[in-house]
């Protein structure tokens, strides 16, 4: 009997088996984790090659085929998201080896790996799914694993934040489930293909609105962002990197998909989405300016950046929606990589200096130069300065808005950029100030392995800007959705 190793199955099942192995062999968890990540990355690369060669691929699980069964489907966008997940995941895993190496962290170490691999299972599952109920189950897998990671440090603040995150997650998932129920009532199907031809009746609009609100809660879109800053700021650094870099992207991806297959029912709703995004850009920026701790600042910047992604989504109105998702996708990729790098760097800085109070960063007698440099590079991409991927994303956003004559979205983007310059320069100037410390400042020169992963991520975020054209071509493979079915 020859085993037919489908790469889509591998992308989901490898992490699942990895999680099982890491759970029952706690002593070898780190090794299992790294091997799993490497294998999963390999599977994603193979899948990417397959998709590039033959377009979108579909796997009808159980041989039934939608709508009775569940289909897995990989197109350019899915593979791009999978690639983001495995690349960032792999590097964060390497960083985690170092971040969790303390003697008192044995149990954190033991639980980090199974939870993270289950999280990976869920995220990969979302990117390959074509069934809205399956997506519900997947976001729950993600939610439970993510909450587990949030409270890894078991401090009071982390558990408090984790509980709020849990409430938000459950509520978001239930709103989504309610939407699924309504879609079933309306069209009697749950697969994307079934959604495509559906008439936009009132019930369907209600369903989509519910699902959108649920997803907005999960991805922390203003004003439903309240849980995010505390959760991301209080988790341990590798967990924060995974949460901010990858987890919120899963819900964002579902929004993109729904928009691809079910054109938004009205211009007004789309404008509303853009306004929520604009609110996030401004409010997140203001809060980041006021944040006292480094990780909290980074977490608020996530709120602002997610808002920007929604602005990108709404940038050219309903007419431009067939193009807008690409700008949003670019920003998602850019933010995923850069934010993971930034959280890891912030974690390193906190470890080295011993605290992360922004006001006192320049009083520290130690300067982790490489981590600070990484932080700065990640900031460049998040601000959207050339040639980073963040810049390309912002360029696409503004270009679309200009072509459509939507000046307000251009203005929001520019305001967001200025705000991000302002709040990141608070941190950067603290790195470069030396007159508030009397003792000679010790600077880390040379290379620490722990800095390698975030630095690689940050450099990738900047370098990928040069690859934007091939990336754009790639994510368009298999679009529109129906083409490969």
């Amino acid at each position, binding site marked *: 009997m020859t085993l037919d190793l489908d790469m889509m199955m591998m992308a989901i099942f490898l992490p699942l088996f990895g999680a099982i192995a890491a759970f029952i062999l706690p002593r070898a968890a780190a090794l299992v984790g790294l091997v799993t990540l490497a294998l999963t990355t390999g599977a994603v690369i193979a899948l990417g090659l397959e998709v590039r060669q033959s377009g979108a691929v579909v796997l009808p699980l159980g041989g039934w085929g939608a709508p009775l069964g569940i289909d897995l489907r990989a197109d350019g966008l899915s593979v791009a998201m999978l690639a983001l997940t495995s690349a960032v995941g792999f590097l964060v895993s390497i960083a985690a080896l170092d971040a969790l190496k303390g003697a008192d962290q044995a149990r954190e170490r033991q639980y980090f790996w199974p939870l993270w691999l289950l999280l990976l299972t869920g995220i990969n599952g979302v990117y390959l799914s074509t069934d809205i109920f399956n997506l519900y189950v997947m976001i729950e897998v993600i939610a439970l694993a993510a909450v587990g990671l949030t409270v890894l440090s078991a401090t009071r603040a982390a558990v408090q934040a984790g509980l709020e995150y849990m409430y938000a997650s459950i509520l978001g998932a239930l709103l989504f489930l309610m939407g699924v129920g309504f879609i079933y009532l309306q069209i009697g199907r749950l697969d994307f293909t079934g959604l495509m031809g559906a008439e936009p009746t009132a019930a369907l609009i209600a369903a989509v609105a519910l699902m959108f609100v649920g997803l907005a809660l999960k991805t922390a879109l203003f004003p439903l962002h309240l849980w995010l800053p505390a959760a991301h700021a209080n988790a341990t650094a590798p967990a924060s990197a995974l949460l901010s870099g990858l987890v919120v992207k899963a819900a964002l991806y579902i929004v993109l998909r729904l928009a691809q297959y079910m054109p938004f029912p009205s211009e007004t709703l789309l404008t509303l989405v853009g306004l929520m995004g604009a609110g996030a850009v401004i409010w997140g920026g203001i809060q980041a300016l006021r944040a006292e701790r480094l990780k909290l600042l980074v977490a608020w910047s996530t709120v602002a950046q997610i808002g920007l992604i929604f602005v990108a989504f709404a940038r050219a109105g309903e007419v431009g929606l067939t193009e807008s998702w690409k700008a949003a996708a670019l920003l998602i990729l850019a933010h995923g990589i850069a934010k993971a790098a930034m959280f890891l760097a912030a974690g390193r800085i906190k470890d080295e200096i011993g605290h992360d109070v922004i006001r006192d960063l320049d009083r520290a007698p130690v300067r982790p130069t490489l981590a600070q440099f990484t932080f700065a590079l990640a900031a*460049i991409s998040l601000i959207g300065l050339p*040639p980073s991927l963040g810049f390309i994303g912002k360029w696409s956003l503004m270009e679309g808005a200009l072509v459509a004559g939507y000046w307000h979205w251009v203005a929001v983007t520019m305001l967001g950029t200025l705000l991000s310059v302002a709040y990141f320069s608070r941190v950067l100037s603290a790195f470069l100030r030396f007159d508030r410390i009397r003792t000679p400042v010790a600077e880390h020169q040379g290379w620490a392995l722990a800095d390698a992963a975030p630095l690689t991520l940050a450099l990738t975020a900047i370098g990928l800007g040069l690859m934007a*054209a091939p990336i754009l071509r790639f994510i368009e493979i298999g679009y529109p959705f129906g083409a490969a079915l």
Partner: protein
Amino acid sequence: MMDAPLLPLFILLTSLLASPILFALPERAAGLRTSINLSMAALKVALVGWLSLKVAQGVIYDLRFEMLPGLEFKLQADPLAILFIALSAVLWLITTVYSVGYLEHGPHRARFFGFFSLCVAATVGIAMSGNLFTFLLFYELLTLATYPLVIHRGDAAALRAGRIYLIYTLAGGLVLLLGTLGLWVLAGTTDFTPGGVLADVAAETPLAAQLLFIVLIGALGVKAALFPFHAWLPIAMVAPAPVSALLHAVAVVKAGAFGIMRVVYEVFGIETAQELGLTAPLAVLAGITIIYGSLKAITQDDIKKRLAYSTVSQVSYITLGVALASPIAAVGALAHLIHQGLMKITMFMAAGNLAEGLGAKRVSQMDSVGRIMPGTMLAFTLAALAMIGLPPLAGFVSKWYLAQGGLDAGQDWVIALLLGSSLLNAIYFLPMLHRAWFRDAASDKAGAPGRPRIGWMLAAPPVTTAVLVLVAGGLANAPFSPLEWTRFIVAIEYQE
């Protein structure tokens, strides 16, 4: 000679690749750092020399790389680019020598030279950008690379200056992004093309074209320190002397001025810009900046601040020459790009030597310094006289052509402006020279050491550039002089 289509890329990489290596070197590896610095700078000068020869022979360099659908990263080596690269390559070499001497025992040298290299890479990139999009990339890189240099000292004043610098330049960069996008949306291309790409758009929707002009020039005006966007420049003076020298002579303000040239000549085209009725206001704005900068310079006691306001004034000569829309004025503008760089870098390095050797940072402390540091002060004097416009020095040549251009364009007020400006230059430079050479030091200075201890690495660079000032002026009509090259460029831009 061997054919090398990637030559522009190599020139870019000499400093771009040097940068990460310099970052990674440990602080104590001073010898290795210096050799990398100097060999890269020398290599760049050699490569630029080779490139200029090839371009003069008519070889066309055009490197493209698609970044977004239809939007390219494009490097080209046209004569205008060569002019700017040659300036930056030569001055980089000289400034590197100076910086090595200046920062010999200071902290954070790895960081400094890393960003220093990056800064030159950005300048070279700006020079060779083949379209506004590429220009934007390097323009932002320049901002980022110069910021750590400006705040190199790491104290409160430096950080404050750095913050203001960052606010001005990043806001300018953002507006430039908007302008680039606007150009892309309006014209469907951002390529620099002699004669411009906006003639059709200007004919159809003149208002949009006018707005675009204002946005682009406004954005570039920030770096070019055009009034009223000049305020950052005098504040950025807290930077170490070699940084100030580079910022004023080559990198930042020149990038702005160079950008204005590209936009007026190759995005709008001089004719279109004239038809839109926008060159005359620009000329007036430049005129205001020239006078304003000079007036402010007079009142400054801090040497570097005085020099900074002088830069505000002098750089606007370039803008003026562009805006006069006359080929002769254009020759003056382009020549001034080079000449001002040579003159100003000399003065800043000399000022740095005064501060380093004698602790003299104010004009009032300059009494009799000429006798203590004759070489440095000779160089300073020469550059100051050139600034005032004394023939046959470099500054005279550019002013001469600008004045002629003014007449040619029928803008007679330019003559008055130039005369007035020269007078003001004299008012703020001559007292410095007078103090340096003819006033005796106050008695309380008696305890100061007779011979300042500055090494040859600090003493030689300003003298070298002063000699170049003399040569550029005196041999202005020789082949391969900046002026000759300038005529070559103007012939292209005016499509004669």
